[in-house]
């Protein structure tokens, strides 16, 4: 895949008009809101956004106000990818009839709820059919909009409102579903992970995803201070810690060939750069109960799983898979 090598300066991006506008009603310090702003800065021309039900969909479309400066469609929770399929088909029909001359990019946006769980079927179907769209997953590890319930993206040990840290069961017992591996297994043209702190990397990946002809998947790690019970000021810092502790390594896979992105790549040969998971967990209220003597084993399990996934990732990237 040839990328068009988009080069940009901070000034250019900063001066570019926002397409996700101020006045949306996300919480103060919302990671996903920051994510969406940046995603929209990376658009390259006429764009249509379709959105699954969730925090970002709600906060930007409280009738009669809208925070979207581009055409935007929301229908239901589980079908952002099916929306994208329909729009893609319609645009192709219009082009074939000669009624549409320009190319219009389609971005489907969903939270971890609308991707990992209820949205998985529609996403898998849309990818298999090869529709031309970019699917952006903003992952805050829970069903935040409905009150911080667990999703299959919630990591082990996290306290959510449906897996509360109780006296008998200390939070979620299941591990975080490896959605990216599932996406890679679809043999799709472009799969990548990114996060807010490394915003230049994020923008580049959005642009690459848009340039790809066919389906592209971008998984953005977006901390939620409300759901994570963390300091809103530290939202972006947590996204950095997630990468530094290898809880959320960032990489991209072009036609299945995976390469680590610079911040994660640095850690491979220099394991001393890898921060312990507890540095990342500290200050997050949802993990506070893990710092007690009786829950130490869960903390250890979380470190072990992180290490195991990281080692496996290193091997896969080296062998180019």
């Amino acid at each position, binding site marked *: 895949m040839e990328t068009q090598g988009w080069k940009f300066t901070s000034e250019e991006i900063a001066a570019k008009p926002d397409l996700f506008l101020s006045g949306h009603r996300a919480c103060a310090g919302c990671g996903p809101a920051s994510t969406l702003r940046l995603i929209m800065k990376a658009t390259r021309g*006429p764009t249509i956004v379709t959105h699954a039900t969730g925090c970002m969909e709600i906060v930007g479309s409280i*009738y009669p106000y809208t925070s979207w400066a*581009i055409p*935007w469609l929301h229908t239901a929770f589980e079908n952002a990818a*099916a929306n994208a*399929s329909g729009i893609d088909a319609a645009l192709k029909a*219009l082009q*074939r009839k000669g009624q549409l001359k320009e190319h219009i990019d389609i971005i489907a946006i969903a939270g971890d709820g609308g991707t990992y769980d209820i949205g998985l079927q*529609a996403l898998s*179907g849309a990818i298999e059919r090869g529709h031309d769209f970019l699917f952006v997953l903003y992952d805050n590890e829970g069903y935040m909009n409905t009150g911080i319930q667990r999703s299959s993206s919630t990591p082990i040990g996290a306290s959510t409102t449906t897996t509360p840290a109780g006296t008998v069961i200390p939070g979620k017992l299941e591990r975080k579903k490896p959605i990216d591996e599932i996406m890679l297994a679809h043999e799709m043209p472009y799969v990548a992970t990114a996060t807010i702190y490394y915003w230049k990397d994020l923008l580049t990946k959005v642009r690459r995803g848009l340039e790809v002809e066919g389906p592209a998947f971008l998984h953005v790690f977006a901390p939620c201070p409300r759901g994570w019970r963390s300091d809103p000021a530290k939202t972006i810092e947590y996204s950095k810690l997630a990468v530094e502790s290898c809880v959320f390594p960032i990489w991209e896979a072009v036609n299945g060939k995976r390469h680590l992105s610079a911040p994660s790549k640095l850690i491979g040969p220099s394991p001393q750069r890898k921060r312990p998971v507890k540095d990342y967990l500290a200050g997050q209220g949802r993990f506070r109960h893990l710092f007690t003597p009786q829950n130490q084993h869960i903390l250890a399990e979380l470190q072990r799983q992180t290490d195991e996934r990281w080692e496996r990732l290193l091997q896969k990237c080296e062998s180019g898979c």
Partner: protein
Amino acid sequence: MEKLVKQAIVALNGDEAVALAVKQCDVDVVAAYPITPQTIIVEKYSEYVANGEVQTEFVCTESEHSAMTACLAASATGVRVFTASASAGLALMHEMLFVTSGSRMPVVMAVANRALSSPLNIHGDQSDSMAERDSGWIQIYVENAQEAYDSIIQAFKIAEDVGVSLPMIVGLDGFTISHTLEKVEVFPQEAVKQFVGERPLPSVLTHEGKTVPFKLDPKNPMTMGPNVSPNFYFEFKRQQEEGMKNALKKIQEVNTEYAALSGRSYGDGLVDAYRLDDAEIAIVVVGSTAGTLKVIVDQLRQEGVQAGILRLRTFRPFPVEELRNALKSVKIMAVMDKSISFGGFGGTVFTETRNALYDAKIRPTIVSYIFGLGGRDSSPHDLRKIFEDLIQISKTGQVETQVRYYGLKE
């Protein structure tokens, strides 16, 4: 008044007739999932696509829920869309049916009416689309393959009318119509294309302060499908109801326009009365059973019985005035329901008919017959018994059971 257009006669089953009509209507996107007994529609259409006979984007979605979503989204992008389903597939779309109507997208859907599970039954019964009567979709039920062909063509004109802007179901009885080969008169492609025309778009006011055509268009961005507070929701629902009201008129208009071209009219488009002018006993029914009943009515008339039938063609919006008018001479009637609404007082069509006739000057006696569930067949000989029941009631003045299960092994 336009001249009658010359039509060719072909042998088609209901599903094939639907597929042909869709082909001729210059549909831009078809997103569908196969389910018996609608499969022939999607298969036939796939052949048209594979042979380059249509310019449609054909999307084989991974479920009916996604099929309806893709249709909705494509319609939101300003193009003409079609889909088809039945039974469990229609039920799976349930959430999206409400969303499509609320989004005011004129999606046309053929439903090859089939029984709902459980237990699984693939045969004809109208419970599937009757169960969606609250969803805000216009519903027309056809009597035969010819009407299926005609109604699909009419559907695009009705649904896409700017004053209507509601999605529409054309129901055809599973297997009885969908899989039965019949003689169908079809138009040449050009005539249909001309009749249906281009899809018009209503206008909306966007957040940019502009009044523009209602579609996703980067030149005129708009936000569709927001969340609304209790302060706003009610008004949007009232708007949908207005669309339904306008549909009553539009269905009649389109029926008349189409009759001028085809030579075929289905009653007034809403109700199809057969020998009802002076009828004293009558049956109200939806769908293909009407065909069989007409044969019996002819026999009874020969015997001097003043019998008639009313085929209710349009179920949503429910044509109250037209129904009252058509049945004004009838004293005793049966309403046959090929569906069941558990725990209700009689069948669905019975309930709505009785409701409409409650304020009639002379309230007729109305009996509910639930029949044909899961494709249970009824022969002319059997169906005649219903008229005989009505004759009995007229003699004795007694209605022993108001809700009857016709053809049930008791």
